[in-house]
């Protein structure tokens, strides 16, 4: 026992070093599970508060462009309104409201911190449990998909960005409904990759990519990007499609968090059918 203690004491610096590195790797390991909640995230009260304070100051700089995007979006929504359509025939029809049950509701939120230059990017939003945000909700902006809520605290939530090595989002090509998976390879924050589209499908540069609606987080038809280039891997029957994002991830200020009202029902159904 004594020699062991002497040995430990002699090299205590080295052992302290090993111990601290062990803790560091423990944190890395804990954090690397996708969407597992972690204490050490920017959603906690202290760092969220500081980020909120700092974005309160820097917000003024971007006001012009934010106003413009909001105005554009308003104009677009206005054009979809019932009042902006003219009745072209006079056949009688009944609007039966019970036909439609609302499935998605949206919360607006402000981005208070955001990165796009790391290999795994996250955003922090200024809405949290108090406002009804829950884990695994989808996040979009007026120009397309942003990411998925990873962690929630009382007043803030942190979002795994689309620009994350482990993000996988089901998407499809708008013109022919062929479904694939969106991943990010970590090189360019303006470009993502669409995999798993079979090689016999006809595609061309410029085709629009939208969300497929197969996940519970995003409704069908949310914009993602347009095809920028594509190739077929040797020996494989699938395309590797490069998709240019509509969103400028370097410049996001206001986003919407999607609440799927039927998520629990869907979850339960899927669980039941998997158990059989």
């Amino acid at each position, binding site marked *: 026992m004594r020699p062991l203690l002497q040995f430990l004491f002699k090299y*205590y*610096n080295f052992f*302290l070093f090993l111990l601290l590195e062990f803790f*560091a790797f423990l944190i890395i390991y804990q954090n*690397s599970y996708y969407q597992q909640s972690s204490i*050490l995230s920017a959603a906690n009260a202290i760092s969220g508060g500081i980020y909120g304070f700092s974005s309160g100051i820097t917000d003024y700089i971007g006001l012009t462009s934010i106003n413009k995007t909001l105005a554009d979006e308003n104009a677009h929504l206005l054009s979809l309104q019932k009042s902006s359509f003219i009745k072209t025939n006079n056949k009688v029809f009944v609007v039966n409201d019970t036909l439609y049950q609302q499935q998605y509701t949206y919360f607006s939120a402000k981005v208070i911190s955001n990165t796009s*230059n790391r290999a795994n990017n996250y955003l922090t939003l200024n809405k949290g449990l108090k406002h009804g945000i829950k884990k695994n909700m989808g996040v979009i902006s007026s120009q397309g998909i942003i990411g998925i809520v990873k962690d929630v605290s009382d007043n803030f939530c942190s979002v795994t960005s689309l620009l994350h090595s482990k993000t996988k989002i089901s998407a499809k090509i708008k013109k022919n409904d062929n479904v694939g998976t969106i991943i990010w390879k970590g090189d360019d924050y303006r470009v993502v990759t669409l995999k798993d589209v079979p090689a016999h499908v006809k595609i061309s540069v410029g085709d629009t990519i939208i969300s497929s609606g197969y996940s519970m987080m995003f409704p069908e038809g949310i914009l993602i990007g347009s095809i920028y280039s594509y190739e077929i891997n040797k020996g494989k029957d699938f395309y590797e499609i490069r998709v240019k994002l509509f969103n400028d991830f370097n410049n996001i200020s206001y986003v919407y968090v999607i609440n799927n009202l039927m998520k629990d029902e869907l979850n339960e159904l899927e669980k039941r059918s998997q158990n059989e």
Partner: protein
Amino acid sequence: MNNLIIRNIIRFIGLVLLQVLVFNNIEVFSFITPFIYILFILLLPFNTPRWIILISGFLLGLCIDIFSNSGGIHTAATVLIAYLSPWAQNVVSTKSDNEAGTQPGIQNSGFKWFFLYALILTTAHHVCLFYLEIFRFTDFFETLKHALYNVVFTMVFIIISQYLFFNRKSE
């Protein structure tokens, strides 16, 4: 002595805030972000007990990780250079004229000494950080290239800060 401790605590808080509020928003070529917070480890006085360097390195990395949502990668990299820093001081200095209690810097130790010392530790930190972030060796040289570009930018800011804040003959 007390003065020295207070000054280092203020520097710790200042550098963390500067890093997360200002430097984390800097993006050159979409992958370069200067990590100036390691300046805290570089500027700890000579002959600081090693366990103090290690613990403060751990806390420093942890603070940065909490703010940047990066798991423990900054912690791991900063503890590494905290362990290496006394070794780097010995490797670089040919003569042991660095008295205990003074802090490393261009004024005290000369440009060449400080530059080499900072370069060794910054490179160690960045290489460790970038490989931990990617966590695979498939893009080995690409990652190394990114890390080394980043070293250049961090070094520029470290040297500038030396001339900005420590240009008086230190008291």
